[in-house]
């Protein structure tokens, strides 16, 4: 028995060496022999296997089978790592076969799941994602069934080759088991992503994140960033509740990372910089959240001319009251992150901003203010000097926030002021930008500025229409706004010209619509200019007609363009028909004697 005991100790020792070899030593292998340690580990495992089969006689059949399964598993992983897939598969299959009858027992379940994980990886490497999926899904099912029926922390595979006194605590066992399952979920997420089952993939990513949090297997900063990114996925699917939850959790976890003065004080300046950058990144995700929420609400509420529809508003309000809470709670449970203390702070964070569509100005304003705060936070890091592109993107979002807030505002004067704020933030940025390096961005800015001026002019006209008579001040204002809008549209169109200042014959796909819309708006703006001088008016009409004609002619020449500007084209055609007669009439008025 002593000899047998000694033999066992030797076996355990060899097994342990093999494991360290493949886990630790293999990282130091030279490039010329990348698998040196893995090969020596394999040799050791083979030895162990032989020793084991020698001692097999007389042993308890089940125990022997399990031990052999562990060895087969290790060998299988080893072969997979060294790119010998078929051999690896053979070993892993043998392992699962040996374990099949005992797979629900605590000493086998973990090993079985890990074997299936590895089979999944192996098949994914053969580009057979479907096969991988079946293995991983069966691992997932096994975990669920085991937790339902037994639930005790199962043995870790390595324990089978350990002396009694070295065995792990229940806590450690549970941790390792859960980790194996987390990996299963993570691999499943990837499998679903490759199969383009995006929703499922996102769900599994979410669960992976959740489990990382529960079992403390995460780096706070990285985790927060991942959660924030996931929120963006939910945004694109219009799941604002989930998105908010992810963001709130990201913020909470991130603030924890900031509090723990990470053990070593020698944290370099660079790390600090990184930390600040990531904080700003999360803030940007929040901005997008607020913006998307407001914009979706706007889409729900607007009527066909882009104004707030009061009937829709009432209808939605009634509807919201009815279904309030009930449904939300059901969904909420499914996505909740973390343990109770984290959960509380996450919920507190969530309180600060709503996740339901805002239906009136008050609600919209609250969301807007939250968004604006995050804009300030993000801008703190992404300053214009050094992060031009990012900074401008943030300012553009800020401007978009104002734009959508203006939609909820009923008072035209105040709405106008909001647009003015947009101008104030965009114009200096545009002035500083060198279009040679930031052509795309400066085009975007030109267009947005022009659009904003255009909208302001429209508002002023609407205000003017309410008055009995237009006073000269309003007229002046309208005209100057129109001129500015024209100026920026023209700047945009000029940016399309080639170095020799020639406007391109055929517009590129990506600028086709903006360019034609710019032409259309300029035409309309010239039509709107108010002047008492008939001659001047005639001139403006002529220019307006020219721009309309350009649009019509262009669409005739390139019928592909029609799709991009259908409504604009229709109106332009009408105008091209109408304007000449109007001009004729005006001319007749000018010179009544001819």
């Amino acid at each position, binding site marked *: 028995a002593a000899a047998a005991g000694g033999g066992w100790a030797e076996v355990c020792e060899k097994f342990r060496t093999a494991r360290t070899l493949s886990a630790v030593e293999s990282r130091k292998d*030279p*490039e010329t022999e990348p698998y040196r340690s893995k090969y020596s580990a394999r040799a050791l495992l083979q030895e162990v296997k032989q020793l084991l089969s020698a001692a097999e006689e007389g042993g308890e059949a089940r125990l022997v089978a399990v031990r052999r399964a562990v060895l087969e598993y290790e060998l299988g992983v080893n072969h997979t790592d060294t790119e010998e*897939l078929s051999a690896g*598969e053979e070993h892993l299959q043998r392992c699962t076969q040996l374990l099949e009858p005992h797979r629900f027992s605590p000493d086998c379940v973990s090993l079985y799941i890990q074997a299936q994980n590895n089979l*999944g*990886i192996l098949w*994914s*490497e*053969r*580009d*057979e*994602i479907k*096969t991988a999926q079946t293995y991983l899904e069966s691992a997932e099912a096994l975990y669920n069934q085991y937790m339902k029926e037994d639930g005790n922390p199962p043995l870790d595979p390595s324990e089978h080759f350990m002396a009694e006194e070295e065995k792990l605590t229940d806590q450690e066992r549970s941790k390792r088991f859960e980790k194996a399952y*987390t990996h299963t979920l*993570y691999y499943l997420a*990837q*499998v679903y*992503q*490759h199969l383009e089952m995006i929703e499922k*993939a*996102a769900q599994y*990513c979410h669960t*992976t994140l959740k489990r*990382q949090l529960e079992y403390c297997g995460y780096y706070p900063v*990285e985790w927060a*960033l*991942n959660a*924030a*990114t*996931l929120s*963006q*996925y939910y*945004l*694109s699917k219009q799941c604002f509740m989930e998105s908010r939850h992810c963001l709130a959790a990201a913020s909470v976890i991130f603030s924890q990372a900031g509090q723990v003065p990470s053990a070593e004080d020698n944290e370099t300046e*660079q790390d600090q910089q990184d930390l600040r950058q*990531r904080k700003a*990144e*999360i803030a*940007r*995700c929040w*901005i*997008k959240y607020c*913006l*998307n929420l407001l914009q979706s609400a706007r889409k729900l509420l607007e009527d066909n001319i882009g104004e707030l529809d009061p009937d829709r508003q009432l209808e939605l309000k009634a509807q919201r009251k009815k279904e309030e809470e009930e449904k939300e709670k059901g969904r909420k449970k499914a996505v909740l992150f973390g343990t109770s203390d984290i959960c509380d702070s996450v919920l507190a964070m969530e309180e600060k901003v709503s996740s339901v569509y805002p239906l009136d100005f008050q609600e919209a304003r609250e969301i807007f203010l939250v968004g604006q705060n995050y804009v300030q936070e993000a801008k703190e890091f992404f300053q*214009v*000097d*050094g*992060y*031009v*592109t990012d900074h401008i*993107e943030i300012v553009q979002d800020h401007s978009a926030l104002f734009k959508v807030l203006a939609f909820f505002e009923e008072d035209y004067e105040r709405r106008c002021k909001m647009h003015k704020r947009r101008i104030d933030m965009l114009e200096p940025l545009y002035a*500083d*930008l*060198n279009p*040679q*390096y*930031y052509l795309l961005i400066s085009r975007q800015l030109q267009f947005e500025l022009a659009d904003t001026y255009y909208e302001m002019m429209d508002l002023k006209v609407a205000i003017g229409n309410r008055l009995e008579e237009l006073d000269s001040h309003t007229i002046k204002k309208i005209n100057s706004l129109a001129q500015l809008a024209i100026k920026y549209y023209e700047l945009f169109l000029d940016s399309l010209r*080639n*170095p*020799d200042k020639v406007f391109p014959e055929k517009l590129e796909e990506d600028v086709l619509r903006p360019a034609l819309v710019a032409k259309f708006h300029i035409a309309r703006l010239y039509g709107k200019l108010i002047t008492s001088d008939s001659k001047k008016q005639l001139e403006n009409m002529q220019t307006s007609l020219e721009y309309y004609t350009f649009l019509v002619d262009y669409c005739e020449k390139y019928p592909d363009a029609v799709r991009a500007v259908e409504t604009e084209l229709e109106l332009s055609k009408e105008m091209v028909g109408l304007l000449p007669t109007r001009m004729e009439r005006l001319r007749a008025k000018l010179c009544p004697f001819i």
Partner: protein
Amino acid sequence: MAGKARSGCEALKVVARCRPMSRKEEAAGYERVLELDVKLGQVSIRNPRASPGELPKTFTFDAVYDASSKQADLYDETVRPLIDSVLQGFNGTIFAYGQTGTGKTYTMQGAWAEPEKRGIIPISFEHIFTHISRSQNQQYLVRASYLEIYQEEIRDLLAKDQSKKLELKENPETGVYIKDLSSFVTKNVKEIEHVMNLGSQTRSVGSTNMNEHSSRSHAIFLITIECSETGPDGEEHIRVGKLNLVDLAGSERQSKMGAHGERPKEASKINLSLSALGNVISALVDGKSTHIPYRDSKLTRLLQDSLGGNAKTIMVATLGPASHSYDESLSTLRFANRAKNIKNKPRVNEDPKDTLLREFQEEIIRLKAQLEKRGMLGKKRRRSSRRKKAVDGESAMENEGEDDNEDGLEKNMENYLKEQKERLEEEKAAIQDDHSLVSEEKQKLLQEKEKMIEDLRKEQEATELLATKYKAMESKLLIGGRTIVDHTNEQQKMLELKRQEIAEQKRREREMQQEMLLRDEETMELRETYTSLQQEVEIKTKKLKKLYAKLQAVKAEIQDQHDEYIRVRQDLEEAQNEQTRELKLKYLIIENFIPAEEKNKIMNRLYFDGEEDQWKFQPLVPTGGNSNQMKKRPTSAVGYKRPISQYARVAMAMGSHPRYR
């Protein structure tokens, strides 16, 4: 080149280059799968595993260089125009792209020692500095930087502290730049080569595993050429050209690093490490109206000007000819083919605000002014001391004209300093000699004098410092013909002169030939004026006879044509009659033997197929209902071309390839 630039858009120039078979490959008996057609600029690649009937895939590029091509060919034909435009102030980029071991580094750097085998980089150095040395009335400043991107981290290969990661920043005026990137001002080929070598050394030393590292990292050598020239408007214009020489990581790693903004190709593999969870999540998010932290690649951002920006760009795709690298070569060719579609809009960088050259020029002016001021200052003080001396009752001595000339100034200074010193020493001696003074006072005076000497020395030092700084600054500015000693210059110039002469002579020759032709015609006309009536009659008769013969020939021709025509008409008439008869017969048959109902049915089904030029029947049943009327395929063959066995079907369900790989 200029013509292309004028059109505004310029596609990326893509050339392919193939290395010869290596000895190892020949020994292993690999076949050649690449065929290059240098004249047409085509590369065709044959799949070694394909059936013999399969056609090779063909790609067309701007130029193709086969195994026998020389480094100089590639440079002269493709690269030289690009470097020329960099010297004119464009931005230029040259990429080398391809599998590891296909000669990227050979193409870019080549073998330094042998002039024949020098790559693009050393030849371009030569080119740049030769150009500068030949230029006139232009000031140049050439800077070089060397950096590498490894695992999304930027390292400065010329900096002392290698551990420092550099940051990519943006400036609203000048676009993307790398913060704290060191750059060296170089004055000649030797210096820039030194910079290059220094960087290459750090690159190999800095990593434990050279080969692995270099095949995974991108190296970028940046040359900035600033040129200042006085324009016709009398103002100074500064142009800045930037040249990026990029040695990309091996293309087999490319997909893994996600360069060029592409998603990794081998996406079907599962990532084992949980740290990649972020990648998985961001792959789920689509970019519109959302923000995805950390996604863009450094290389792409750094070279965004070159890829669809305002630079001129050349991509050299390097290939291996042997069959075992078929897949890689094909993917390289495909990538290169895609790259052809990238359009750039090159622009001259004229008068950018922050050029170093301008800074240098300003600094020089400032230093000059300072030096002059110092000179003045010295003089002033001298005057004041003179005044003091006058009070002391001692005689004043020297007087010099002011001189703006820097040399004179220095001499001035020297003389002046010497004199001052001498005088001070004299005074010191005088004081010591003067026993009448109280010793205390004497001490004080002595100290004062000592201090004055000290001050003087300091002043002198400062002036010297300024002067050296000034000189150093000025020496960095390169002016053609003066700063760089170009040995070949004279001969080259002679050669060019000769070439011009030859061209001139050719032109003259052409002119003379044209003149000769003109003269010939004149003589012809002259000959046609007749000497006498007799002669005229003779010639005219001759002409008449000739023309008459011609007339007869034409008449005969017409008759022939007419006959032919009549014959054809008769033939046609006959044919028509025949057909009419036939038709009548057919009608008769139809009327007598086919019931009217049937006839109508058939008539309704008839339609004329214009393409095949004949009448056809419409199918009896409409095509739409075809499927349910057709008999079903046997159940064993659902979805397959032919019935297959259960075993084979199971095997197919297991995977496209029933046998394990």
